[in-house]
């Protein structure tokens, strides 16, 4: 109760747009005489002056007369609300007509006051209620945007699935003719008696083109088989080491220093080694793109208990694991430029990329997240307080009992 009273007696930052000097004075005294409704007050005589003030001061609410020297009627509210999107607005006018009153609400006003029909008590109540309404309106708009985003995510992932399925089918059909071309050229290269240099060049180029087409098809196949996983017990550290060996060349090229901090903790997890290797490679390469030449990437693993993984903030899904469950955490950190806050929530969207010009397809992190979801494991990417980015992966640790159970099952199958 006290809190609400406090809320409703909080002084406001108010803008009055009113050309009639008497009305100005009345409002001013209502707003400023103790107990003051307004802690900050500016009065404009024209709409244009009001708009100018909005851009200069951080008002919370505006009291707006509709008939001003430079604007009359409904036009006043439509123009003003366009310039003051974040402001709550109370229309204050001498004539009252219901249709006009309702019309102002449609164009951005939160309430409608009739001059000389209210006292400072009513004014205070109206202003605070307007602020609340404006807040609800903002909440609604935010909820709408979130919903829109979720819908877009659904559409994207559906697109993703369809493209994947299509790609898988097409890839298979294309591979057969490719095999014919590839073997045919190999045969000709080895069996043509005394071919001239042009014939050799043509064959070489056909072979090269076939190999390139094959690579593209393999990428598509890779994309289409995102739902096929072969999970076996594995050491996360050995997966990371293999991933590092595959990207070492790119790291050396940029003279990036790689620091590995692997604890001796138990690091057994149930994963598809190739797929998780793919995730780790992707994250290392992202880090490598982010750091300057001679930059630094640190990869570490440790064992934690859910949900306290020693990382800032929370995981989107608090029920990803049971509380107290043993979790293997991988951290891949860089000292690069970080991710701009305004795109941080978009980085997992399919086809979102900051490197389109450099050939990024925007599928990398999206595939990573997909792979992690298929493992019922977590991925989180955030800007480190000390600068640079940290990508964290967390997996349910495999217990000895689970490992034994897997081995027994495997024996049974053989």
């Amino acid at each position, binding site marked *: 109760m006290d809190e609400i009273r406090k809320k409703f007696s909080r002084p406001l930052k108010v803008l009055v747009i009113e050309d009639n000097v008497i009305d100005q004075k009345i409002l001013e005294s209502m707003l400023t005489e103790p107990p003051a409704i307004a802690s900050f007050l500016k009065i404009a005589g024209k709409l244009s002056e009001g708009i100018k003030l909005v851009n200069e001061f951080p008002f919370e609410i505006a009291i707006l007369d509709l008939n001003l020297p430079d604007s009359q009627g409904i036009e006043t509210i439509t123009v003003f609300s366009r310039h003051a999107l974040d402001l709550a607005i109370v229309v204050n006018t001498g004539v009252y007509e219901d249709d006009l009153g309702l019309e102002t609400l449609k164009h951005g006003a939160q309430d409608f006051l009739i001059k000389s029909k209210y006292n400072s008590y009513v004014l205070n109540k109206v202003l605070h209620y307007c602020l609340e309404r404006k807040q609800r309106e903002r909440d609604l708009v935010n909820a709408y945007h979130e919903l829109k985003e979720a819908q877009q995510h659904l559409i994207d992932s559906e697109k993703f699935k369809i493209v994947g399925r299509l790609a898988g089918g097409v890839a298979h059909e294309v*591979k*057969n*003719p*490719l*095999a014919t071309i590839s*073997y045919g050229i*190999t045969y000709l290269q080895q069996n043509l008696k005394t071919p001239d240099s042009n014939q050799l060049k043509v064959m070489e180029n056909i072979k090269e083109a*076939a190999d390139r087409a094959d690579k593209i098809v*393999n990428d598509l*196949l890779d994309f289409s088989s995102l739902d096929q996983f072969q999970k076996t017990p594995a050491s996360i550290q050995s997966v990371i080491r293999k991933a590092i060996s595959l990207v070492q060349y790119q790291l050396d090229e940029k003279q990036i220093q790689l620091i590995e901090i692997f604890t001796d903790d138990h690091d057994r997890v149930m994963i598809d080694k190739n797929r998780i290797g793919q995730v780790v490679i992707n994250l290392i390469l992202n880090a490598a793109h982010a750091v300057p030449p001679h930059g630094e990437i640190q990869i570490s693993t440790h064992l934690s208990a859910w949900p306290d993984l020693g990382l800032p903030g929370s995981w989107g899904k608090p029920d990803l694991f049971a509380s107290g469950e043993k979790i293997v955490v991988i951290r891949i950190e860089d000292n690069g430029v970080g991710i701009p806050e305004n795109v941080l929530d978009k980085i997992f969207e399919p086809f979102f990329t900051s490197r389109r010009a450099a050939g990024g397809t925007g599928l990398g992190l999206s595939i990573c997240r997909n792979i992690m979801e298929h493992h019922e494991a977590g991925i989180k990417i955030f800007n480190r307080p000390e600068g640079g980015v940290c990508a964290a992966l967390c997996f349910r640790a495999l217990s000895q009992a689970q490992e034994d159970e897997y081995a027994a099952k495997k024996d049974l199958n053989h």
Partner: protein
Amino acid sequence: MRQKKILIIDDEKTFTVVLKISLEALAKYIVYVENDSSRAVATACKFRPDLILLDIIMPYKEGPDVAIEFKNHPFLKQIPIVFLTANIRPEEIDEQNNRIAGHIFIAKPTPFEDLVQTIDRNIHQSVSL
């Protein structure tokens, strides 16, 4: 040395024509082609190959079903089978030593030299058995 007999069972005609010519050019194999997988067993009985190259996705009868027929056949069950497939990436097969569930796999298109190596390795194995 006796020339080894290889039977290719694959519905992709252009591929089988080129592969037969390529393998026979090495002068160490006699190659027979069957494009209709439903006739695989009958053809194999007639030809008695030392090794079978078997496609996986085919109309009428798919590769694995053909392989089961061979495994259940009194004479044919000894013949080593190498699966040829366009469904798997070469790396995926390499990582598993060319074996999936105990069978030998080759991804299409694997370099021709690798295919020949795999054939030779597995033919010799069958002789020593």
